[in-house]
């Protein structure tokens, strides 16, 4: 397969998508990129981030969930004859939304992407960035071929599963890439976007995390954005991958929940003021016990603790379904694997404390 010459991308301003776009433009000097955006303000910040490479990018105003992205006929006529690579990185990643809302962007958007890709005669590849957690409440070894019968822990997981089905149902040359939880920009430990894991860690650091579902042996699969973006780029332009499904995960390099909590505790204990507080590692519970805890908190009316518990309820129950993601296919196609979590996790937790969960970064920004 020759290198793509014209990329159409959704989610190009997102945490993963922005890095994928920057890498692709750097890797392929002849590549021209068209990015679907709703707001011109997003375009301005993208141009700033891309630097000189932004000259090869074109802003396409549209709406992911509207028919034909609500593109003008002129835009559509410009794009479809030229685009040979579509990367669909846009998603609503909120865990707490109801299923209808999650479907709107994650399923509806994917259906629009498929329709658009079908209209591109030069299309060589449709790359869909999914999530490893489409596997929901499945446990054990998750193969890169696994279908996902459900149930799911939250609407995000289910909607991303349904999005995969929409992509797979097309006759297009699709690639589905499933990253696990991205928690750091790279192995330096820098975190420029906070997610559910960071918020849960903040509660733990504040001594407000009482219980978590899972056991000390539960694998926690975490990856860096740098690994995921590099893998997305490499697989998107890989000469030999046609249709396929790949886990962009730590796999056997995942950290166990026990080690993750202990390591975080050890690193934070380097600060005497924190150590003096005597904060314990959260108790690990089976799911029924965790649900009793949630119900008890809901009944006792302490507004702050209730808000904290509610914030975790759409995310942490995933830990009650221990799973290891097979990465053989991705590792083999890429020629490299994700760096084991244990090698960079201490730097992440140290970074979070040092920046007070990016408070200083936000103030600076």
């Amino acid at each position, binding site marked *: 397969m020759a290198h793509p010459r014209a990329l159409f991308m959704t989610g190009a301003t997102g945490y993963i998508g922005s890095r994928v776009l920057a890498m692709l433009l750097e890797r392929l000097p002849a590549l021209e990129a068209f990015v679907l955006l709703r707001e011109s303000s997003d375009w301005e910040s993208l141009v700033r981030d891309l630097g000189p490479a932004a000259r090869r990018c074109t802003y396409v105003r549209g709406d992911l969930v509207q028919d034909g992205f609500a593109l003008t006929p002129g835009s559509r006529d410009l794009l479809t004859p030229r685009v040979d690579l579509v990367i669909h990185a846009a998603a609503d990643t909120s865990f707490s939304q109801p299923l209808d809302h999650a479907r709107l962007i994650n399923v509806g958007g994917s259906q629009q992407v498929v329709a658009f890709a079908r209209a591109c005669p030069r299309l060589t590849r449709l790359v869909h960035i999914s999530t490893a957690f489409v596997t929901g409440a499945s446990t054990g070894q998750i193969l890169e071929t696994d279908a996902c019968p459900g149930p799911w822990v939250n609407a995000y997981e289910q909607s991303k599963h349904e999005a995969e089905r929409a992509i797979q149902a097309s006759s297009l040359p699709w690639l589905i890439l499933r990253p696990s939880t991205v928690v750091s920009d790279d192995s330096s430990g820098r975190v420029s976007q906070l997610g559910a894991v960071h918020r849960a860690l903040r509660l733990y650091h*504040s*001594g*407000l*995390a*009482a*219980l978590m579902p899972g056991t000390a042996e539960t694998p926690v699969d975490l990856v860096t954005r740098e690994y995921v973006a590099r893998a997305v780029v490499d697989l998107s332009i890989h000469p030999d991958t046609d249709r396929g499904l790949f886990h962009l995960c730590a796999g056997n390099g995942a950290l166990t929940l026990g080690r993750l909590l202990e390591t975080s505790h050890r690193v934070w204990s380097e600060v005497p003021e924190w150590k*003096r*507080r*005597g*904060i*314990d*590692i*959260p*108790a*690990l*519970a*089976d799911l*029924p*016990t965790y649900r*009793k*805890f949630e*119900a*008890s908190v809901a*009944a*006792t*009316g*302490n507004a*702050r*603790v209730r808000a*904290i518990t509610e914030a975790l309820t759409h995310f942490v129950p995933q830990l009650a379904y221990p799973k290891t993601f097979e990465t053989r296919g991705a590792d083999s196609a890429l020629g490299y694997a994700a760096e084991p979590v244990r090698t960079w996790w201490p730097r992440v937790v140290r970074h979070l404390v040092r920046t007070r969960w990016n408070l200083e970064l936000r103030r600076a920004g």
Partner: protein
Amino acid sequence: MDDVSIRAVRYVFAGQSLSVAELAARGRLGSAPSLLEDFGFSNVRVATTESPYSLVCAASRELLAAEDVDPESVGILLWAGAGAPVAFDVRPSAAESTSSHRGLARFRFPGPRLQAHLGLTGAGVIAVEQMGCNGLFAAVRIARALVLAGETDRALCVSAEFFPADASREAVFNCTSDAVVAVLVERGGASNRIIGQAQVTRGFHWDPCVGEEELLAGYFPTAQRVVRDILTRVGWTADDLDWVIPHNVSLRSWEILAGLLGIPLDKVWTGNIARYGHTIAGDNFINLHDAWQEGDVGPGQKLILFSFAYGAHWNALAVEA
């Protein structure tokens, strides 16, 4: 012989029994009575004409008589809980307590008075304070250490603490009774051998008026750790346990803690939660007594007594019944 046992327990509750609904009607609860009933509480005992001292005196006298113990054979008297002068007061208000702390009255200590009252002429008196609901745990722990150290063969531990008159009877969704407990600890003994103990104090939470959420969040992880620690220390597993003898806090919280410990709830002796609710004096020892009386606990059974107290203290005791 290195064995130290809890030979006997006696307790006395205050006379007036009030239901959760009656407490609510008198404005003595913070939460809805239905919630507290759902959490397992039904009745509490409230002192009206009794002082902590008068009840301790009665419980101790009864214990020594029932066990046929010569008062002069008691080498140590450990007093936990209410100190001077509130131990002698009937329904003291805060203002009365403050005024009676002035002058020499502040040195009218209940422990020495009890020693004289009961004729424990050979007993040195030690008072345990600042342990909240774990005062009796601390007293029993000290008694055991003194027996093991050869300082005495027999110690009487007493604990008394009432809520102030007209104070709310609820603390962190737990309903509380006024009670006193007396425990006889001695060398050897045929039952209730103390195998080991564990304690964690997190002084960062010395002030329960500050950072309540953090303290509540820390309750379960530290409780789990303390119980696991003592099991490891005495070489038992959760499966080995016949009973957990609890402090009488919310049944919901025991459902959660039992789940965390991998212990079925029916192995947590919860019979007294509805009957009496919580006491500051020493739920676990009251429950140990009643579990024996009701035939639930029998010789040789493996027991863990666990309790939490503001301070903040987590305590556990391993006992072979």
